[in-house]
């Protein structure tokens, strides 16, 4: 990490994740995304006079699973508190959240960055209800959609252990992967089921004291998180260097300009007047209940990654890339069940298919068995990798069968030494300049010669064999 003017950044992240329960946290309304405005509401989530909240126990179960998956200690006794503030999207004028006794505490996640692995502490995870949404309309003015009121959330607060945008991104990716594996949330940033607040301060490298932090709220993509951090880091450093003081305030990141703007300062900040919600009894959990919930957590990314390295011989990087997206990893496992060329399958998957995927998560139209056949074709040297890449694209886009295409289109790799020798000879004869360069010791000239030979073969030559034949021919004629 290069330091800017000798300052380091200190980052803590607050991540809100919507839990995938069927019903809301305090009533039986549906949590489904995308309904007509206010169709998923009732007197309870609308906060009408006289209604009372009753906790959906599934919310506790899911939050505990998230806590266990992020190595947290689970509270045997916790409570829910009211966070009081006025806003039109908050029908009760308080949000039911957790203040001093959260459900989960003292967890961590291990992340991989270019500097190696690092442990990021998780301060706490608590449950709370989501607020509604304001819809601004030119004709009707501002309207309120309460469908989201009462959708259950967990807020995951990290320790200020993050020191770069890269680490922040790695942490968010890891967190998303872990939560996704537990199945308690979809973590779809596009639909707002995962949202991130960034707390950032700067200090001279080596200093112990924290600087004054600013908070950037509700950033909804990893890319924007990175941009916001990079901008805010420099902004704070420049401010300090210019003799100004950083003000503790909430700032808004504008994706269009890539800049952050002040929203409200601490002086105008709300005093939320937290107090225990008298409508809700404390949440109590037994060791047995916590143990049971632990059993419901499937294999997590780190364990899968280790298994891919040890059982399939994948590199740590490839294993990390595959396991970062649960759906990609699941697909990979389905492919791996049909082929013995698992490493080749992983390369093809990460090389071609992840580029073709445009969805937030890996969604593949190709049957795993069909993809496994492609890996086999490469593994048993029936086709070369450049053919495989082309086939992969056509499998994704057009749904072709790779074996059928190879047979009907004659895409088999050319392994016949005499044919390859002929190709090499033709290429050498056709490229006198490259040959001259090669003889002068220019390595890239060799690639040009092989490229020409490959071209003459229609891309079907076995590249390894072709190379060794060509090399021998060139060296013998030196």
């Amino acid at each position, binding site marked *: 990490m290069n330091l800017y003017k000798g300052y380091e950044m200190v980052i803590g992240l607050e991540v809100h994740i919507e839990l995938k329960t069927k019903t809301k946290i305090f009533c039986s309304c549906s949590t489904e995304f995308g309904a007509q405005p206010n169709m998923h509401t009732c*007197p309870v989530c*609308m*906060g*009408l*006079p*006289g*209604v*009372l*909240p*009753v*906790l959906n126990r599934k919310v506790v179960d899911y939050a505990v699973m998230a806590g266990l998956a992020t190595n947290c200690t689970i509270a045997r006794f916790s409570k829910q508190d*009211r966070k*009081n503030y*006025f806003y*039109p999207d908050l*029908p*009760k*004028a*308080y949000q039911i959240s957790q203040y001093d006794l959260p459900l989960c505490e003292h967890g961590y996640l291990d992340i991989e960055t270019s500097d190696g692995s690092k442990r990021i502490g998780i301060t706490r995870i608590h449950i709370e209800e989501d607020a509604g949404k304001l819809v601004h309309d030119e004709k009707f003015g501002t309207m*309120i959609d309460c469908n989201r009121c009462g959708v259950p959330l967990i807020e995951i607060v990290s320790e200020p252990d993050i020191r770069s945008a890269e680490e922040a991104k790695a942490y968010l990716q890891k967190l998303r992967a872990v939560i996704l594996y537990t199945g308690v949330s979809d973590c779809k940033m596009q639909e707002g089921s995962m949202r991130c607040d960034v707390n950032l301060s700067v200090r001279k490298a080596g200093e112990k004291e924290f600087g004054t932090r600013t908070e950037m709220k509700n950033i909804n993509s990893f890319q924007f998180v990175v941009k916001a951090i990079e901008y805010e880091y420099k902004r704070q450093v420049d401010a300090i260097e210019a003799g100004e003081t950083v003000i503790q305030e909430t700032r808004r990141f504008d994706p269009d300009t890539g800049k952050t703007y002040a929203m409200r300062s601490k002086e105008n900040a709300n*005093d939320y*007047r*937290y*107090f225990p*919600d*008298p*409508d*809700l*009894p404390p949440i109590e959990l037994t060791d047995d209940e916590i143990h049971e919930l632990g059993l419901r957590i499937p294999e997590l990314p780190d364990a899968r990654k280790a298994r891919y390295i040890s059982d399939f011989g994948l590199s740590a990087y490839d294993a990390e890339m595959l396991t970062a997206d649960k759906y990609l990893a699941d697909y990979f496992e389905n492919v791996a069940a049909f082929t013995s060329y698992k490493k080749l399958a992983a390369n093809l998957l990460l090389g071609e298919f992840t580029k073709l995927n445009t969805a937030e998560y890996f969604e593949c139209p190709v049957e795993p068995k069909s993809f496994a056949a492609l890996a086999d074709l490469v593994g048993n040297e029936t086709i070369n990798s450049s053919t495989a890449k082309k086939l992969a694209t056509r499998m994704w886009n057009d749904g072709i069968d790779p074996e059928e295409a190879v047979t009907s289109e004659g895409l088999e790799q050319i392994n016949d030494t005499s044919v390859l020798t002929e190709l090499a000879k033709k290429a050498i004869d056709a490229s006198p300049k490259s040959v001259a360069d090669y003889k002068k010791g220019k390595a890239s000239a060799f690639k040009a010669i092989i490229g020409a030979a490959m071209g003459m073969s229609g891309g079907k030559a076995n590249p390894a064999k072709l190379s060794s034949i060509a090399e021998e021919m060139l060296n013998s004629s030196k």
Partner: protein
Amino acid sequence: MSELTNRSVTRHIKALADGEYSSAELTAEFLKEIEKTDGHIGAYLLTDTVGALNAAEASDKRRSAGCLLSCIDGIPAGIKDNICTKGVRTTCASKMLEDYVPPYDATVITKLKDSGFVMLGKLNMDEFAMGSSTENSAFKITKNPVDVSRVPGGSSGGSAAAVAAGEAAYTLGSDTGGSIRQPASFCGVVGMKPTYGRVSRYGLVAFASSLDQIGPITRTVCDNAIILNAVAGHDERDATSLDIQTGNFSRLIGKSIAGITIGLPDEFFGDGLDDDVRRCVLDAAKAYESMGAKIVSVSMPSVKHALAAYYVISSAEASSNLARFDGVRYGYRAKSFDDVAGLYLSSRSEGFGKEVKRRIMLGTFALSSGYYDAYYKKALQVRSLVKADFDSIFHKCDAILSPVAPTAAYRIGEKTSDPLAMYLGDAYSVPVNIAGIPALSLPCGKNAEGLPVGMQLMGKDFTEDLLYQLGAAFEAEKGEQI
């Protein structure tokens, strides 16, 4: 007051069963009485003549078909106006909710409907149940039927006055710090504040969630137990409602009270207590002694802090509970404002009355950062002390006897200029809410001016049946047959 509307629920049950009159006739009689009387009593904010008569006719049909829903099927009642009634305006006696019509029924209303409910109308109260005289209603003053120059007490003043004036066979009130018991005492009727969690709060517009409890106001102790039977019970819509069997609250009525120990706490008979009230309550103690109960003197040292703790806790909770009345979705909205903050400010300033605003300010202050520990947290500590005091007393005795209020009903306007004097009147009733225990208020005599004096029987959690037993025994010993 017509003889018919002056009868107990118990007698209506028998008369309806005997065919002496129908529910429709009885309901018409009550509506006639309301028409005649309520102009100068002012108990009702709304009467639902058509709804009541239709419900009564439906009840009569069930009766002739032999499929009554319960023993109180067809007996007309009134409901405090902070209990939500589907399709019927529920105002909390506040300008804020002047036109508010709930889209759902409170659980107690659903339960009464399942028992054959005939609702006469909605009853006046102090705005959002904040007050002790019903003078804080945004709409009207309710007068004490015993002496119309006096207050009926509060906040359930309309509920108590309606029963006392023969304008309802029974009513429901709510009690956060004495709001059922004190008006019952002022009007000479019977009121029960059940154990916290005994009756569902779902649909009761919250004042102070940890203290609020719905309860019946009736002419007799026996009636009260009958109504509590109908409205009590676990409700999955209220997480604080108790998931225990309720049993029959009348089951001990008529059994001998010999051997029962009743404690008289010194602190409830000290300075500030009116002499007539003291005399009446001590006479009641003597009556119990004569029936074989054992009277012992007990002490509740924490009670002197209870009132302050009550006002901190109830106001803190109220400040949060009433925040939803912001003019955005329903209720009063100011005519002019510049922005969202202005909408809140003007709507709340104009929609709430003086006392409600006072409590919101008090509660907001108590919860504010930097003051929380000194006020709210301290009040919760007092709450634990009060509970501990009651626990230790209930090791020594089965029930506690005390006055409900330091005086009988005072004159309208007498205390409105001095909120603190008004608050002091709650000193005997609030410890019960703070501890969550049940307490029964029933008449125990008259003062020199002929005004009713009430006494309060307190029991440990879930002993409503014992309190009814004690209350009914006293009533049988002293009371007239109604």
